[in-house]
């Protein structure tokens, strides 16, 4: 049974579980796909910007925790019969998109730790990378809005029924 009152009281937790998991998952994908399998950019590309290296390290550590923590939050929500998939997915898209946008703008452009790819015209890659990030964030926001609408209409149904 869909427990709307549980879902509503744990709305924020559903969202955060999604954001954390999405962030960690996209960071993990970035590392395995582009660093390890395609070798588009490497393990270590830049040896001068100390802050870039520190931010990268902190971000990596955080995303490692976020993946595991996000999944434990899901387990917690299930235990409370409050898992709300639409909200969770909205959070996942926002978290994943935010990571990609951060990677594409701050890490690639401002700190110049690494680029997506070398020895090619970088502009189309940048547009696709950051464009995809913006699309993900927008889709996430729409999903959250729609989830909230679902909750409201379910509430109305309950009111009519009683």
């Amino acid at each position, binding site marked *: 049974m869909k427990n709307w009152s549980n879902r509503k009281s744990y709305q924020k937790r559903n969202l955060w579980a999604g954001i954390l998991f999405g962030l960690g998952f996209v960071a993990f994908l970035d590392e395995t796909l582009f660093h390890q399998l395609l070798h588009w950019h490497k393990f270590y590309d830049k040896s001068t910007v100390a802050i870039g290296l520190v931010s*990268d390290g902190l971000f990596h550590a*955080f995303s*490692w*925790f976020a993946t595991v*923590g996000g999944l434990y939050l899901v387990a917690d929500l299930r235990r409370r019969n409050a898992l709300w998939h639409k909200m969770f997915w909205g959070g996942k898209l926002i978290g994943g998109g935010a990571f990609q946008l951060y990677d594409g703008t701050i890490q690639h452009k401002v700190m110049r730790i690494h680029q997506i790819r070398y020895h090619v015209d970088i502009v189309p890659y940048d547009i696709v990378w950051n464009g995809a990030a913006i699309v993900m964030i927008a889709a996430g926001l729409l999903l959250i809005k729609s989830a909230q609408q679902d909750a409201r209409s379910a509430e109305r149904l309950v009111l009519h029924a009683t």
Partner: protein
Amino acid sequence: MIAVLLYGGAVFHSNRQRRLRKWPRRRTVLWIAGVFASVSAVAGPLAELSHDQFTWHMLGHLLLGMLGPLLLALAAPMTLLLRTLPVRQARKVSRLLKSRLAGFYTHPVVASILNIGGLWLLYTTGLFAVMHHHLWLHIVIHIHVFVAGYLFTISLLYIDPVSRRYSYRYRTAVFIVALAGHGILSKLLYAYPPAGVPIEEARAGAMLMYYGGDAVDLMMIILLFSSWYHSTKRQRSHIPSTSTRHAHANETTQNAPAS
């Protein structure tokens, strides 16, 4: 060998005491695996190889400083010690555990600095090259790596009794910073190998340190979150049981004959 025998003897002793629950076999297995992992880094073929090659050295470091201590900590040696010793000695040990000094060394921040800071000191200064020329320094550094790794593990995961518990949030925050420190150092080694190490070896070693460290840290993260998850369940199940007790209490007072 001695460590395995001592632990085995303690388990035997503890299992003979009827009033105590049987010591889980899983913990004995973890202890043996932990001793094996730690010892293999300082004696035997791996130790020989690690003298000449940085990559093997890094594998030894992972076993001695990370995996070994984690396995040993999971075997809960302090709990076993406390239930094996006679009460008087056990009290002394627990007083020692509660002491200010023990509290200092098992503070998450202090243990992290000893562990990760020690590695920074070893690899970014000339210490690594010097270590290979002095046997005593070699021994001291290896003991430090092991002890610091163990302190780091027990300061973040509470398997044995501890005098002061820090919140999950606090430990998570410290852990993230420590993990980042480890990752940054391994990337730095990739670019700037320690003196006397060829670049190719340093790169392979640094990658091993980075991903191997991630693998062990992932285990620790899962253990940390899993105990967090279970601790909130306990709190939750506690609430309804007290409320039912209240309800019972009310019922009995209401049903009691008016005096």
